[in-house]
């Protein structure tokens, strides 16, 4: 039984990290106009939300199972107060910090219609702090530290999020969808492409 808690705690932590990676990648890539894999925008939005809630389920499982685990020997305040643990306080504290941030992000998201868009978005940006913190926690603490499979999963997660960031930063990632051809007065175009000037150049030749 005690072994079961220990193994569940380790496994659920990894599952939670993978799910959070999906959530962060979708969140980074979600913007108007273009969505990943040709999905409609509402589908990306719903997968983002549902994967996040599922990640919270595994995260709570991760914390609760290790709380009752006789090896980990967590105290109640270790669940929310970072960097105060007895065992590897820095690495365990990173996990506690990420847990707190995820709780704040999820709570404000569920209440965002009451909080307003500005507060919700400010708290939501904490995800960019929470996800790397969780990643470092997974790499630094625990008995899987140094295992090839854990490093592979962490590298894949990092690559996924970095790919989403790069994709979003590409110049073609427009803020507005380009569904209609823009009708621009030729006089307002940059000078070198102005047809009148092209004409004068032609004449000068």
């Amino acid at each position, binding site marked *: 039984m005690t072994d079961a808690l220990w193994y569940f705690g380790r496994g659920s932590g990894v599952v939670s990290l993978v799910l959070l990676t999906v959530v962060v990648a979708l969140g980074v890539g979600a913007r108007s106009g273009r969505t990943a894999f040709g999905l409609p925008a509402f589908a990306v939005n719903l997968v983002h939300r549902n994967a996040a809630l599922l990640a919270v389920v595994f995260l709570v499982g991760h914390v609760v199972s290790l709380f009752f685990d006789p090896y980990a020997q967590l105290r109640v305040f270790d669940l929310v107060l970072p960097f105060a643990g007895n065992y590897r306080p820095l690495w365990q504290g990173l996990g506690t910090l990420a847990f707190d941030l995820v709780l704040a992000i999820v709570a404000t998201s569920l209440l965002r219609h009451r909080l307003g868009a500005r507060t919700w978005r400010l708290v939501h940006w904490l995800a960019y702090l929470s996800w790397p913190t969780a990643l470092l926690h997974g790499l630094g603490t625990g008995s899987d530290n140094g295992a090839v499979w854990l490093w592979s999963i962490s590298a894949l997660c990092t690559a996924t999020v970095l790919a989403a960031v790069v994709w979003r930063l590409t110049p073609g990632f427009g803020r507005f969808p380009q*569904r209609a051809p823009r009708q621009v007065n030729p006089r307002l175009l940059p000078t070198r492409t102005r047809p009148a000037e092209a004409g004068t150049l032609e004449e000068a030749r």
Partner: protein
Amino acid sequence: MNRLHVDWTACDGRGLCAELLPELLVEDDWGYPAPRGDMSVPPALEPAARQAVDRCPALALRLTAPASS
């Protein structure tokens, strides 16, 4: 009948509402929702309208109760 209300100062043209509620909203050329009718929500579309309101990333969509008069 409840009515849909778009807060145009908040709307960012993300297009989710027109995807979730094509019966009442159509996307214009720039992705912003354009009303098909008078934005009153028939009872059968109430759940879809609530989901569209819930999913709006800019919190720009609202359901407003009809005036009591």
